[in-house]
C-alpha cells in the first residue's frame, strides 16, 4: 500500500475509534465550554481587545494539550505493536496529525461560538480571524501531536507534555496572537501577509520535522 492509502486508512481508523468512545470528544468539548463559563463568571463581558484575545488563545492552548494528549496515550501497547508491523510510521504520524488538526478546528470553532456568546465578540475582520483560527489551530494540533508522541515514549506523563510542549508552541502562539489581534481590531489596511506566510511556514516546518523524526521515535 502506498503512503497515501495507508494514511487514509489510519485516519479512518482514528475516526472509528472516536466514534466508539464518544464520551472522550464530548469530554473535551465540555472542557472548552466550562472554561468559557469560568471566564464568563470572572470577567462578565470583556471589552479590552488584548485581554479578550489572550484569554481566547490561552483557552485554546489548554484545550489542545488536553485534546491532543490522548492521541498517543490511549493506544495500548499491544495495539501499537500491531500497528508497528502493519504500517509505515510516517503514515501513523501523518494520520494522527490530520485527525488532530480536524479535531482542533472543530473545537476552536465551537470554542469561538461559546466564547463569542458569553464573553462578547469584538471581532471586526471575520474572514481574517477565521483564517488565523485555522492556521493557529493547525499549528497547535501538529506540534502537540509530535510532543504527545515524544511524551508518550517517556512514560506518558501529562506534566512532561506541558513542559515539553509550551516552549515549542510559544513561537507559534506569539505569531497567532498578533495576527488574531489585527483581525479583531480590523484596522489592517492591507492583509498582513508577512504574518500569514510566517505562520504557514511554521506549520510546514513542524510537519516536515515530525515527518522526518517520527520514524526514529517509532522503533523500539
Amino acid at each position: 500500500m502506498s503512503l497515501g492509502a495507508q494514511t487514509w486508512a489510519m485516519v479512518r481508523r482514528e475516526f472509528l475509534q472516536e466514534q466508539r468512545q464518544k464520551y472522550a470528544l464530548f469530554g473535551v468539548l465540555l472542557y472548552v465550554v466550562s472554561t468559557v463559563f469560568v471566564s464568563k463568571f470572572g470577567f462578565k463581558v470583556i471589552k479590552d481587545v488584548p485581554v479578550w484575545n489572550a484569554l481566547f488563545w490561552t483557552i485554546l492552548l489548554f484545550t489542545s494539550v488536553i485534546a491532543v494528549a490522548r492521541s498517543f496515550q490511549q493506544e495500548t501497547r499491544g495495539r501499537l505493536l500491531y500497528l508497528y508491523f502493519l504500517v509505515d510510521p510516517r503514515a501513523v504520524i501523518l494520520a494522527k496529525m490530520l485527525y488532530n488538526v480536524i479535531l482542533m478546528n472543530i473545537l476552536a470553532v465551537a470554542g469561538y461560538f461559546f466564547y463569542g456568546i458569553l464573553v462578547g465578540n469584538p471581532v471586526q475582520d471575520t474572514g481574517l480571524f477565521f483564517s488565523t483560527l485555522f492556521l493557529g489551530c493547525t499549528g497547535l494540533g501538529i506540534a502537540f501531536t509530535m510532543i504527545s508522541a515524544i511524551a508518550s515514549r517517556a512514560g506518558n506523563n501529562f506534566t512532561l507534555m506541558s513542559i515539553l510542549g509550551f516552549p515549542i508552541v510559544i513561537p507559534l502562539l506569539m505569531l497567532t496572537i498578533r495576527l488574531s489581534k489585527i483581525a479583531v481590531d480590523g484596522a489592517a489596511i492591507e492583509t498582513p501577509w508577512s504574518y500569514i506566510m510566517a505562520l504557514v511556514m511554521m506549520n510546514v516546518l513542524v510537519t516536515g520535522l515530525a515527518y522526518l523524526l517520527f520514524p526514529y521515535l517509532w522503533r523500539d
Partner: protein
Amino acid sequence: MKQNWWKIAGSLLVVFSLIAGLQIRVKPGLLNTVSDHASTSEAPFKVSISGYNTNFSQAENQVWLVNDTLRKIKTCASKITVTDDQHIIAEFPPVAPAADPVFGLAVYNSADGLLFKPSAINTTDTFKAVIVQSCTPKVDVNAGKQFAFPFRYVLYESIRNLFFHVPMWFCMIALLTWSVFNHIRYLRTFNAKYDVIADQTIRTAILFGILGLITGSVWARVTWGAWWVDDVKLNGAAITMLAYLAYVVLRNSMEDKEKRARIGAIYSIFAYVMMIALLGILPRLKGTDTLHPGNGGNPGFNQYDLDSTMRPVFYSAVAGWVIIGLWIAQIRTRIHNLKEASENQ
C-alpha cells in the same frame, strides 16, 4: 601541546577581547547642555555644556545651534568660555525658532572633531516661520579621528558590554548547533559516542544561556531602567532556555540509555528548529518591539552599531568564547566517558 593549540588560541582571543574591550577609550561626546533661559528669543542666553572625554581647552572651539527640523540653518555662539577640558559655556545672540522649538547643539574643535547632541535645547517659543540667523562653521571632517569606541547616548561606557554579554548568546547558539549536528549524527548511526557529545554540549550551552540572561538583565537595568523588558529577543532567549531545561527534564525522566538518547535527540532537534524560528524569524516581522539593535525588520548588527573599532574586538570575543564553550563541553564529555568506563568495570 599539538592538540591543545585551539584551547590556547581561544584563551588568547578572550584575553585580548577583555584587555581591548576595557582599555580602548570611548570617543568624546556631549553629556549635558543646560540653557539659562527658557526662551531663546530673549536677549543673549548662555548654554553650559559638559562633555565626556573631550579636550575643550586644547584647541579652539566652535559652538552652534542647529534647528532639528531645518538642518541647514545654523546659529553660531557669539562668545565661548572654556572652563576646563570637560566644560564650556557658550553665549548665543537671541534666536527665534524656525518651524520647531527644538535645537540640536554642535561643538567642534580640531582635537575632538565634530560633536553633536540632537534635541539639546527645548525652548518655550512657539512662534514659527522666522528664519534664524545663519552661519557656516568651518569643520574639517577628518579632525579628531581616533581609535576609540563610539559615543552613544544611553549606553555610554556600557557599550563595552557588547564584547562580554553578546558573545554569551553567540556561544550558546554555536554550542546548540554543534549539539544538534551530533544528535543528527547519532540518529543516523546510533553510535552512543555522538549522543554523549551532544548531551554534554547542551548542558554547557545552558550555562552560557543563563549567563547571557543574567548579564543582559543587569545591563538592561542600567541602560533601560528595568531588570526585564518586554522584548522579542529577550523573551525568545528565555523561551529557548525553557525548551532546553525541558530537554534535561525529559532526558532525566528515562532510565534506559538507548531510549533516552534517541528521544532526547528527537526533542533536541525539534526544539532547535523552533528556536531558530523564534530567534531568527519573529524579530524580523514588522510590528514587533525590540530595544535591541536593528528594530523590526532587520535584527543583527548594522554598520552603525558595529563600527570598525569594535568589530575586531567583538569578533575575537565571540570566537574566543565559542572555543571556550567547546572546550568546557569537551571536558564534560571526557568526564562522562570516564564515569561510564568506571561504571562498566
